[in-house]
């Protein structure tokens, strides 16, 4: 009996055949990196199937940040194996903050994979700001001289126009100064230029906040150090000899050939540039009537006319130099020379001459 059952069972096993059962595929969405607006995002599919050859269908939708609301119309709809798409900038009038990627697939048995959806947050980077400063004269930062600050603002996702730029400048006391926006400014190009005029020496803090539409803010600070204006110094003079009493017999020009100054040197080292001023000279000479020094005018030279004096007259010819900053010389009126800094930088010089 047992043997008969076994004999029947063996042919039964060999007679039954069935095709393997087709498993439906399953899908995963893969993405490496960040998803950014106005940039290309790239997605790949990880397909789990018993056979190769799953037809994929990608769609992507713009969504609100939490993904609660997404556009019904995909911004991309493709059947390529991979999804490559430019992430839109706006959704519902605001920057896109998330996208939903939906992937569907069918194998060649038309077995459909369960659709998969993933919500990807759209990354937003803060803007970047770089600042530089320059002086309108000779690269020197001095009170009264306009300082130009240039800013370059850029943002990976947002156009320049979309970035709000807020500059402020404060003087060394912390007081906010007025800024002038220069015509070179072009927000679309991310280029800004402002100017301000410092009124005292010290550190001026220039701050710029650049804020993108998603309120990501970048802050940059530039400190402009404004130095004190230096008093002009009398440099070369003619007559150069000054150790004694000059003898003057005919009309004699007394000349300041050069003056050293940070902003107002004389002569102008670059004639024709836009340097507005040069050092100024004021002259005094002993009155022909004798005694006191009297005002003898301005300019780089003074002509002593001996015929205005008696032979043998002792005459003083004095020159004082000034620049754009009004200063009071800290010397007695009778002092033949004067130096504000008490050094070799003279603001006053006096020649002595005898009329012969």
């Amino acid at each position: 009996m047992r043997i008969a059952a076994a004999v029947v069972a063996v042919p039964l096993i060999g007679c039954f055949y069935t095709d393997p059962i087709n498993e439906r595929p399953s899908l995963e969405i893969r993405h490496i990196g960040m998803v950014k607006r106005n940039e290309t995002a790239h997605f790949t599919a990880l397909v789990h199937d018993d056979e190769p050859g799953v037809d994929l269908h990608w769609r992507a939708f713009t969504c609100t940040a939490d993904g609660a609301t997404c556009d019904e119309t995909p911004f991309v709809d493709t059947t390529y194996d991979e999804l490559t798409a430019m992430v839109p900038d706006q959704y519902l009038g605001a920057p896109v903050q998330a996208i939903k990627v939906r992937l569907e697939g069918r194998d060649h048995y038309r077995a459909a994979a369960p659709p998969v959806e993933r919500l990807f947050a759209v990354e937003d980077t803060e803007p970047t700001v770089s600042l530089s400063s320059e002086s309108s004269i000779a690269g020197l930062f001095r009170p009264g001289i306009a300082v130009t600050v240039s800013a370059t603002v850029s943002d990976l996702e947002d156009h320049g126009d979309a970035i709000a730029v807020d500059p402020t400048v404060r003087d060394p006391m912390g007081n906010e100064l007025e800024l002038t926006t220069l015509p070179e400014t072009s927000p679309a190009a991310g280029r800004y230029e402002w100017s301000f005029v410092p009124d005292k020496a010290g550190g001026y803090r220039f701050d710029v906040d650049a804020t993108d539409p998603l309120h990501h803010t970048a802050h940059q600070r530039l400190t402009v150090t404004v130095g004190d204006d230096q008093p002009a110094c009398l440099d070369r003079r003619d007559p150069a000899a000054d150790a004694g009493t000059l003898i003057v017999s005919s009309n004699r020009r007394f000349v300041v050939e050069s003056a050293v100054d940070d902003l107002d040197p004389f002569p102008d080292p670059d004639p024709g540039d836009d340097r507005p001023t040069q050092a100024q000279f004021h002259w005094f000479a002993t009155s022909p009537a004798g005694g006191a020094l009297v005002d003898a005018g301005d300019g780089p030279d003074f002509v002593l006319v001996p015929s205005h004096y008696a032979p043998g007259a002792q005459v003083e010819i004095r020159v004082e130099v000034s620049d754009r900053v009004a200063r009071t010389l800290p010397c007695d009126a009778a002092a033949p020379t004067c130096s504000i800094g008490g050094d070799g930088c003279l603001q006053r010089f006096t020649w002595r001459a005898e009329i012969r």
Partner: protein
Amino acid sequence: MRRSIPTWPVAIAAALLAVACGAGLDGGDDGSYPDGGVPGDGGGPDAPLPPPCLGRLDFEPAQPVAGAHNEVVARIPEPLEVLDWQVLGPDGRPRPFQLADADRAAIRFVVDQPGDYTIFANSGCLFPLAVAGDGTIFKLRMVPTMTEQVPPQERDLALPGDVLSASGYDYTLERGNLAEGVVVDSAQAPVAAYVRATPIDHEDLSVETFTDASGRFAARVLSGEHDLLVVPQATGDRELAPFRIGQWTWEQATTIEVPASDPISGFVEDLAGDRLVGATVMLRIDGVPTTVDTTDGNGAFTVRGHIAADGSPATLTVVPPYDLGLPRLEAAMTVHAGRELAIRYRPSLVVRPVSGVVVRAYDRAASQYVAGAARVTFAGTIPVAADVDDGGGGKVVHASGEVLVEVEAGADGAVPPFLLPAVAGLSAVIDPVRGNLAVVALGAGGAVPSLLDAALEVPIHVHAIDDAEHGLPGIQVRAIPKGALAAASLTVPSYATNASGNVAVPLAPGGSYDLLVIDPRSTHGGAQREHVVTGEAFEDFILPGATPVAGQLSTPERQPVARAVVSLFCKYCSGPQSVRPLVRVLSNDSGAYQLPVPRPTAAPARARARR
């Protein structure tokens, strides 16, 4: 089109000095030419052989500029034989000339128009001479820093008219020589003195210094001959006379002994023939000042100077005490040693007291003259105010007089009594505390009106424009006083044109000025107008553009001359432009400089005037 010319100054200098003997001994001419003749038309079978062509002809100035009165001297450096001269102008026509040298080695002629002149010398030897138009020749003065140990020096700078920029104006500055010496008196004691070395023909490049306590001095001077002026300081009762050493060179500066001087004595008499006490007296003998003396109680003075054996040309100056109203005297004369000078004010000259004068200035608000404080200067000249007799039996010399009397009017305009010569030609310069400057010409007899009114100023309107007739802003206009105004030692304010190139320059009514129009940024040339008076209305001052001229300053050792002051002067200008630099720049650390040189144009800086 921009054209750069790297080395042409050297070339033009070479060309001017180069020889261009067209014919020479075998040049095709067969004889000498009489003065004024034409090359090739002289000579015959018996004509003498022409003298040889000369190697060189020097011109002074080397780079002449055309002008109705501009002369050129052409000189053979080494005269060989009797020379025949001829000058042809750019138009090919003969030009008159004069012999400038007794041995016929030099001639003098006028270059009345620009172009190429030809000078014939020695029968057919021809020398070209390029004469530039006005405004193309400049004088470049270079003043290195003291540390450079290079004395100031000058060069001519010629700029052709057709360039918009030029480079290669490189100059090697002479190192000069350190002249060291000691000044002593006859006892070999050190003398404190002022020492001035003036290069011959370059008065502006004088080098001045002083001796120290041991009488020593040192100065870096140019090579070549100088006039050395030594003015000893008066010490106590010892007064040594200034003296000059002519044709001095730096090698001579060893020990300089003050030479013995000649006393020059005399006296001064006032209008009444009384001896004048307290007058200052000085002479300049052949340009060298004497000592100064003040007349004593007897009106006598003694100064010391150096007089040649046969007398020396001199200028006498006498300045009377200020409060006497007498004019200052100047007389050109010949002074002889040992003769006493009698200086007598002319009795015919009347000095009279003036009183009761009130000064008023026009008050715009009140539309009337208002009395007020002022400084008033009376000035003028008297052709003959005194006679000078040296007692030698020769001609009595006339001395001119210069009147300069200053008075101060009080707040009520009243002028305290003062003395003033009663002569024609005097003016009163009124400088009110409130109101504008004015000049009032006094009457024929020098009578001072009881009311001295400073009239309202009348500005002249200056319009500064460029070649394209665009207004030039920021142009500086200076009105430099002349005549009585200049004598009053007034300050010279400057005015700047507005954005349209216009400026109103207030001038003292009755005054005369030289008007100087300057671009302080040196991008344009300047312009000037002499003898400007109020009431003139100017149309335009056209300022020519500037040509950037670049060059390099170096020492003979090829070291750069850094931070030298480089000043450009108009070489042949007159008036203020001749002494004031057109532009002044500094050389950089590499010795390079760039000058904006006023561009020579067919119509150079000029002013058009209309009455």
